[in-house]
């Protein structure tokens, strides 16, 4: 699974919400090798500024057509440029990068919030629909446009919103303990804001289930060269970009 640099052609873009878009690109070298949880590093400009690539999780692949998807929020300059790309435009992408999720679970529960749901979408694709469930949290109903995307891939969708406008009121932890009590699941995968992940890990570990987390750190290179993403692991230093971004919750000490 060597990393490659490809000139990828934009197939199209889709608006998912006010500030979230889905982009599909043609890059067979990446689409045919990327595992769920891996990411790519996208060059948004050939000019000197913005200088660095922008990392995005792989949100789904189409093996046959050689395309893959990313789902991104417009945050700043780089994602703004990305949002303006049209079908036919060509961008340089490095991938696949990092290590993906463990795929041996039989009855996984996926827990996500915000753009953390992007890599989980591809993860969902990789399990049998009837075996997989997702728990998603957001501040308000409009943030959970994700249900349409997950509908096709999962047996059940559980939702929470901070304001109670959709699903259970509260954070994902308002629902998680009772879901875990059912004893249905053999592994929990979580991706989202750090406070959310920390809270989820606590509950899952207490319930005695294995838990995988996907970390996000500011990355200058994405392939292990710069150490901007390093963090403390158990007994050794880890690089989020090459040792992760997916880790077992017990592997990372400082995040």
């Amino acid at each position, binding site marked *: 699974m060597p990393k490659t640099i490809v000139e990828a052609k934009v197939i199209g873009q889709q608006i998912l919400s006010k500030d979230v878009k889905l982009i599909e690109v043609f890059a067979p070298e990446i689409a045919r090798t990327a595992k769920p949880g891996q990411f790519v590093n996208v060059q948004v400009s050939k000019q000197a500024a913005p200088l660095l690539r922008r990392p995005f999780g792989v949100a789904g692949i189409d093996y046959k057509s050689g395309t893959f998807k990313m789902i991104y929020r417009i945050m700043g300059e780089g994602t703004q440029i990305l949002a303006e790309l049209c079908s036919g435009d060509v961008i340089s992408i490095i991938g696949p990068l990092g290590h993906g999720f463990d795929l041996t679970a039989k009855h996984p529960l996926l827990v996500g919030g915000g753009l953390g749901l992007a890599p989980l979408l591809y993860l969902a694709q990789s399990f049998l629909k009837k075996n997989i469930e997702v728990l998603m949290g957001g501040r308000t109903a409009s943030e959970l446009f994700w249900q349409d995307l997950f509908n096709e891939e999962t047996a059940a969708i559980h939702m929470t919103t901070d304001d109670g406008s959709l699903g259970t009121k509260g954070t994902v932890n308002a629902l998680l303990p009772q879901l875990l009590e059912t004893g249905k699941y053999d592994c929990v995968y979580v991706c989202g804001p750090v406070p959310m992940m920390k809270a989820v890990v606590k509950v899952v570990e207490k319930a005695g289930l294995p838990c995988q987390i996907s970390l996000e750190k500011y990355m*200058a290179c994405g392939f292990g060269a710069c150490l901007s993403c390093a963090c*403390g692991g158990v007994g050794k230093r880890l690089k989020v970009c090459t040792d992760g971004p997916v880790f077992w919750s017990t592997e990372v000490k400082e995040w």
Partner: protein
Amino acid sequence: MVKPLYDNRLAINIGGLKMNTPVTTASGTFGFGLEFQDFLDLEKVGAVTVKGTTLEPRSGNKGQRAVETPAGMLNCVGLENPGSDYFLQETLPKLKKIAVPIIVNIAGNSPEEYGKLAKKLDVDGVDAIEINISCPNVKQGGLAFGTCPDSAVEVVKAVKANTSKFVITKLSPNVTDIVEIALAVENAGSDAVSLINTVLGMKIDIARQQPVLGNVMGGLSGPAIRPVAVRMVYQVAQAVHIPIIGMGGIMCAADAIEFFLAGASAIAVGTGNFSDPRLAETISKGILEYMDAHGIKNIQEIIGKALPNR
């Protein structure tokens, strides 16, 4: 052993250190080289300069370690590295298999520590030592050694006394007069100088109203600092007689050529590796194209050509 590549027009020998191409990689931006094997043929790089190594392992700085700035980036990695023992036992054996000169970038807290480290690294497989007296991201030593001629001299002498290798001293741009420091380390016996290290800078997060980087300040690198780097190479080249390895914001062959014209005998690709991990190889090819277009038979012909009275 290095087998010739690039039809020899790029081959250089800087005071005994032989390279197939003057295009090397900058310390801290190329990992230990091995991270780049998916992207390029390491043997097509002039030399691999590895991440700054210290006597003991270091875990570096906490908090956010990098952030983009206009045409540049700030980093405060803080010399995270697994230490010299690990380097010698685990990394060096792998590097030895690659037929390319290995330059080990070293840092310490005192001249004695630099000396000790140099002695430890005086082993087969290491081709040169680059003394980092210009790291802005560590509390003790680091930049301090590089901003004062006397302490720079002490460090160079300690290293030279403990190694049989080619010694390069890496200079800091955060000084009033870089020529003064360059002359001092030349006199102290340094075999070459490399410049520039990063420029001290910082960024503030206006939402949190706090510095972005965990270590508050960091080193600015990338194209933004290239004009400063070219200027300093041009100044130092007029003063010293030892070879110069130029670096700072090199993103393409044209940028590299500016450094040769300013007096650098070799150059290093730094931050550019992050945008394009094949860059070092691409630049060698681009230099050959420029030489073809300008009827230049050997890279030596253009070294220092923009200097006064040449």
